[in-house]
């Protein structure tokens, strides 16, 4: 499985959405991506890519696309 596939899977499983809903998805666009959902997403990303995110990055993780940029800092290329 590629990193992109893993990344997409994290979003889909955490928020119970489909791949088609991912492009352009932003924090609080959907009910599941509230503050609690956000922390579940962070936990799932950390678990999947074996990293520990800094608090600043957790705050900055405001969209599906932004998450890809942030992961580069942790040497995860999507």
């Amino acid at each position: 499985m590629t990193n992109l596939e893993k990344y997409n899977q994290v979003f889909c499983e955490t928020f119970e959405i489909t791949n088609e809903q991912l492009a352009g998805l932003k924090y609080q666009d959907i009910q599941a991506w509230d503050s609690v959902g956000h922390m579940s997403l962070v936990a799932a990303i950390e678990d999947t890519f074996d990293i520990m995110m800094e608090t600043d990055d957790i705050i900055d993780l405001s969209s599906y696309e932004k998450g890809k940029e942030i992961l580069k800092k942790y040497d995860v290329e999507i």
Partner: protein
Amino acid sequence: MLDGKNAIITGARSGIGLAILQLFAKNGCNCWAVVHRDDEEFLNMIRQLEEVCQVWIKPVHIDLGSSDSIKEGMKDILKEKHSIDILVNAAGIVSPNRLFSMTKMEDVRRVMEVNFFSAIELTQLACRAMMRQRKGSIVNIASIAAWGEDTSQMEYAASKAALVIATKKLARELGSAGIRVNAVAPGLTQTKMLDVLENDAEDQIKKGLGLHRFGTPNEIAEVCLFLASDKSSYVTGETIKVDGGGTDLRLSISK
């Protein structure tokens, strides 16, 4: 009561933290024992406990005064891919007993770092895993000093008061993720922290307590066990005083 659960316990090498480690292990809980450093005696005790209780206990070395050390320690724990069901923030220090006017700011900061900020940072890191599980229990060891009615040092009392308020606030935020946050506020307990007491003062203080004696670390641990377990599944945001009914602590406890 905790069969198959996994707990992180700070301050696990002595006093109340050690009593919690032992009681949790006896109740079937696997433990990460967070200590600054260990020795052969501690490691032997852990090995015996593992054998008798049929659980695993892993020492984790963290300097609770250092954010980097906390992060490194938590990374090691998370790498193991076990669930984190329970976090007990039991580590605590006191600075030398002296007037506030004669207290160094570095002592104040050190007490706040270990007693408050480390607990909060560990909570933030551990609760990410708990959120994923949609379940978890966090127990903070506060103190009756949090109510400011005894003569403990300002910074110690302030750090414990901060922990009591944090317990309440975190419980409200984390409740929706299935995480409970509670605290235990021990009164005077038979640990090394009481070494500052003179015998006369000790007797006087005991007379002022409802039960006329100090608590034991195990008596504090029993309440932690209740709060960590599913027996307290509808309890969150609470701080339970475990102080033998003591209220008259205005007697000096300094040498």
